[in-house]
């Protein structure tokens, strides 16, 4: 059973000799168990990406520590795959070679890595685009290639920073459903950042709401809307149910409260 522990983590960014550092995260405590889908919501600048960069190993905490299966995270690694908002694919490789890129880095032979990649392309409905150049795909398809690439290296946890933020509404809802299905099949841990309250409630098994200055987790909710969807309920029906709407308004109130408290500096 895999698990991820964030233990009393604080992150401070130095700004210069005469200015106090930015407290991007303050005393963050978080635990993710195998099969959990944790969603992070919060006003811009509350430290969501900072937390994700910590989990990915791109950033080391000022104090505290992060452990994956009991081992301290000390840098990026293939056990924690990242899906970025901007797809970050490699345009000189075609679709299948992008998906197989992580396997190639590990020295897995071409036919074997293509076989694994093909399986994930199929899972994401991209089997017809194997040999296409990635820059000819639509934004939604590129994002699916990015997810397939992350899955192909069989990580313990998927880290996603607003992966659907740049998609149109319809593509976005389809992608949400796809990601939930894949998560259920693979039972991996997921840490997912979004700005959409609806997306967060629909997809997660747990929601953390963060507040800025200093960045911290202020609320945690357990969710079961994705279970209803996976049990066969229609996605729109789930999102239109009274419980869902009630929850949505409750979370929105918290986030708007933060915005007002901090002067409402929208960017």
């Amino acid at each position: 059973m895999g698990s991820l522990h964030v233990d009393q983590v604080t992150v401070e960014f130095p700004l210069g000799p005469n200015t106090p550092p930015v407290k991007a995260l303050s005393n963050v405590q978080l635990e993710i168990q195998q099969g959990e889908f944790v969603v992070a919501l919060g006003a811009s600048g509350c430290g969501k990406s900072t937390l994700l960069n910590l989990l990915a190993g791109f950033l080391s905490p000022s104090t505290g520590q992060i452990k994956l299966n009991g081992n301290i995270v000390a840098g990026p690694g293939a056990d924690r795959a990242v899906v970025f908002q901007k797809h970050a694919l490699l345009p000189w490789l075609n679709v299948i070679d992008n998906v197989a890129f992580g396997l190639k880095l590990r020295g897995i032979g071409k036919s074997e890595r293509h076989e694994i990649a093909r399986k994930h392309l199929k899972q994401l409905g991209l089997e017809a685009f194997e040999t296409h150049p990635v820059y000819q795909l639509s934004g939604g398809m590129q994002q699916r290639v990015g997810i397939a690439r992350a899955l192909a290296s069989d990580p313990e946890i998927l880290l996603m920073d607003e992966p659907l933020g740049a998609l149109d509404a319809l593509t976005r809802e389809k992608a949400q459903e796809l990601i939930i299905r894949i998560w259920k099949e693979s039972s991996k841990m997921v840490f997912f950042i979004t700005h959409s309250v609806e997306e967060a409630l629909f997809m997660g098994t747990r929601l953390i709401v963060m507040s800025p200055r200093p960045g911290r987790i202020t609320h945690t909710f357990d969710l079961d809307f994705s279970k209803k969807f996976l049990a066969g309920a229609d996605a729109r029906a789930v999102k239109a149910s009274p419980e869902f709407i009630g929850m949505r308004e409750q979370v929105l109130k918290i986030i708007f409260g933060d915005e007002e408290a901090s002067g409402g500096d929208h960017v």
Partner: protein
Amino acid sequence: MSEQKKPPSNPFFGSLFKIKPTKPGEVYGVPGQGDSLLISAISALCLIGFWSLATWAGWIKPLFLPSPIAIFNKFVQVSTEGFAEKTLFEHTRISVLRVFGALILACATAIPVGLAMGMSRVMRGIFDPPIEFYRPVPPLAYLPLMIVWFGIGELAKVLLIFLSIFAPVAIGTRSGVRSAAIEQVHAAYSLGASPWQVLTQVILPAALPEIITAVRIGMGVGWTTLVAAEMVAATSGIGFMVLSASQFLQTSTVIMGIFIIAAIAYAFDMLMRFLERKLVPWKGHA
């Protein structure tokens, strides 16, 4: 705020900046759109026509400007009979070999140096002073020194061209290192890449478009330098042919040589553009 802004009244600038609503296929407000090939062809034909007229009517003496026909005849003559004991083809071949030799040498050294400079603070610190020192100096200014050191043989010429290509290629490669998006680099690390794999499989391919552009610029600089060097110290090559023909007042050979120099430079550039399309089809899409 109900008053509408009047468009600028100057019709020339108005049409230049496409400030009128555009036709389908054009974009509003983008200057200089549309295909200019036909206009260029007409322009070239007019120039040649005017040249023919001026020489035919005797406005200019053939000593200063022979007619286009005379130039073509000279081309045929030098191609078959040769100039200074070598045919036109041989002169051209020698010049092209000198440039390509120097280009290959320069790519083999400048690309690794440029990569190292882009990747490492220490390397940048080491290579910046010499490159920035000699780069702005015209190659002909240090040609005398090269001749003192290496004589008037091939070595001095190839080294001179090599130096003129080295700087632009190294500098272009160095700035190309920054073309990889930080997300691409992070994605590779989070897929388990080692720093060496990130260099060879992410940074180098991402830098390739800029490297090719740099080589293309280097090629142009190298060709210019070569022709100049051949005019100073050589017994063969296109530049030599042009200079020594001028000393015998063979103006038609001079002009013919200039056309050959231009044609080869153009062919080089076409070759590089072709390679660019083949090697980096994703350029501009990424």
